[in-house]
């Protein structure tokens, strides 16, 4: 195999002979693979996260969002329903909606003032009949045939998903019962209260973010803070749950719930970075039980662009927007519940120091993903190793495995024809 597959030749993409125990570098660096991913995954029969309903509570509310690289607008129409339309004028293709959020009765593309309803239907075209009988649209032009491109929409307990595909399975089947269990713990139907947003550019391929959250091994080693305060630790009651297809995942752990028969001293010895540290203000790692769940942390990856986070009492979602093979924009929305006390809101805000572009853990994931991308892009060696846990795939009750990464790539290879 050559170091770099020749441009335009699909035949160069030969998966390493180790099968799922290796990942080839071209997965992360190839433009051709990336274009195929957009087409078959992000614009294919998948449900992509686009918004929380709490962001668009009123008629006429809208929000700019993304499916894959494609700009979309999520709206709440006059009928009260949520619509997702492509942010591209049907006329000349202008990405016309430029505000992050807003409220409006209609969308007007500023270029030629084509006017659309919030569900994307074209309502008016200026000078449609021309002036003094000259110009204008042909007589057979129908407004109904030139609306904004509409995406399929599905919601579950206030979370909005969209799909470009005409045929995609119902959302609950798509996510599946194994993953819905913890999804519904976080989104139990209670109204949400948005606490704010973060955005960052990560200098790595979008799949590395999925891998990161399907690789519980790293959590116990990279994140000294996590281990030091027992938020996730080898030997603690934990699970890496995958759906049967292997595309979604839940990484779960229970703080302070150590498994029987585990020699904690031996566990600590394995971790070179264990340190003694006491916090002066314990709120950042304090936990106020509020969920009917054995887990104090669940991090879920919902294929292909969505992550849910429940880490102690800090709650949020992450939206992956791929920007080519080498980088992603990550849009973070942090929230609580509408009925939270002031004290609980404060706790969530204090614990938000754990995650995000400046989070004690977030920083390290961002850095590690960049370093893996650079390894894939720059060095001569051409594949990485996913041997932890042998050939096991899917759900596992130990953190020391890459079983969920392997099951994700089994599914991915099928979709991608690799």
């Amino acid at each position, binding site marked *: 195999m050559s170091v770099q597959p020749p441009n335009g030749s699909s035949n160069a993409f030969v998966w390493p002979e180790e099968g799922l125990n290796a990942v080839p570098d071209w997965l992360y660096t190839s433009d051709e693979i990336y274009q195929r991913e957009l087409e078959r995954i992000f614009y294919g029969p998948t449900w992509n996260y686009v918004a929380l309903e709490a962001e668009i509570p009123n008629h006429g509310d809208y929000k700019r969002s993304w499916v894959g690289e494609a700009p979309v607008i999520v709206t709440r129409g006059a009928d009260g329903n949520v619509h997702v339309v492509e942010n591209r004028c049907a006329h000349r293709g202008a990405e016309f909606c430029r505000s*992050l959020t807003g409220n409006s009765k209609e969308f007007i593309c500023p270029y030629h003032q084509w006017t659309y309803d919030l569900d994307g239907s074209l309502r008016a075209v200026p000078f449609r009949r021309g002036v003094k009988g000259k110009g204008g649209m042909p007589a057979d032009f129908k407004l109904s045939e030139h609306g904004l491109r509409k995406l399929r929409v599905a919601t579950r307990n206030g979370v909005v998903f969209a799909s470009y595909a005409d045929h995609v399975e119902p959302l609950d089947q798509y996510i599946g019962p194994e993953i819905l269990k913890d999804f519904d713990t976080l989104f139990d139907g209670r109204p949400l209260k*948005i*606490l*704010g*947003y*973060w*955005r*960052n*550019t*990560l*200098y790595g391929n979008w799949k590395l973010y999925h891998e990161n959250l399907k690789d519980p091994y790293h959590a116990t080693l*990279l994140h*000294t*803070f996590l281990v*030091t305060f027992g938020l996730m630790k080898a030997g603690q009651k934990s699970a890496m749950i995958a759906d049967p297809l292997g595309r979604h995942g839940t990484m779960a752990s229970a703080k302070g719930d150590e498994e029987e028969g585990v020699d904690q001293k031996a566990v600590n010895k394995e971790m070179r*970075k264990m*340190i003694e*540290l006491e*916090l*002066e*203000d314990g*709120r*950042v790692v304090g936990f106020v039980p509020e969920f009917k769940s054995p887990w104090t942390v669940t991090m879920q990856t919902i294929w292909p662009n969505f992550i849910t986070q429940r880490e102690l009492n800090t709650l949020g979602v992450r939206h992956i927007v791929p920007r080519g093979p080498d980088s992603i*924009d990550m849009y973070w929305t*942090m929230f609580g519940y509408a009925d939270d006390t002031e004290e609980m*809101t*404060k706790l969530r*805000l*204090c614990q*938000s*120091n754990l995650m*995000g*572009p*400046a989070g*004690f853990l*977030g*920083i*390290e994931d*961002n*850095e*590690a993903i*960049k370093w893996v991308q650079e390894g894939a892009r720059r060095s001569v060696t051409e594949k990485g190793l996913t041997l932890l846990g042998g050939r096991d795939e899917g759900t596992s009750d130990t953190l020391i495995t890459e079983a969920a990464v392997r099951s994700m790539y089994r599914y991915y290879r099928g979709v991608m024809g690799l």
Partner: protein
Amino acid sequence: MTALRNVVPRLEERWALRLEIEEFHVAYAQAIDAGEITRWPDFFTDDALYRVTGRDNADRGLPLGLLYCDGKKMMRDRVQATLRTTTFEPRFLRHYISNLSIDEVRAEGAIKARANYLVVQTLMEEKTELFQAGHYQDTFVRRDGRLLLRERHCVYDSLTIPNALIYPI
């Protein structure tokens, strides 16, 4: 917006206050830029609120912070976590603080002020980048004759952070 001339009519007092706050900004920036972030909490009162947040949050009154420290203890914890537990690539930061505006001097001595900032980041093998443009929304108080921050909101216009924010702004 009130000009400082109206807030502090006497020229000598105005000079003195401006100088004092500008010297505060210089010392604050120097501590962070020199990598001496253990000194960073010393610029705050014990009960101070420190928050770095995007302008999209600030404009909508959303309380989230990229860094959110409720009190000096939490600031010291942030420093310890950064220095002792957090893995990241070495980098240099440089703060440029300007356009100081003193908006209000309250009877009890609290001073509301703003200033623009630019933070420039240099990773060892990469070109220097403009990391963040924003402004400070500050509330100063005087303790033992010395100005301290009781509240600092670092509100950034550059909504998309390049990878990660490690050190305080």
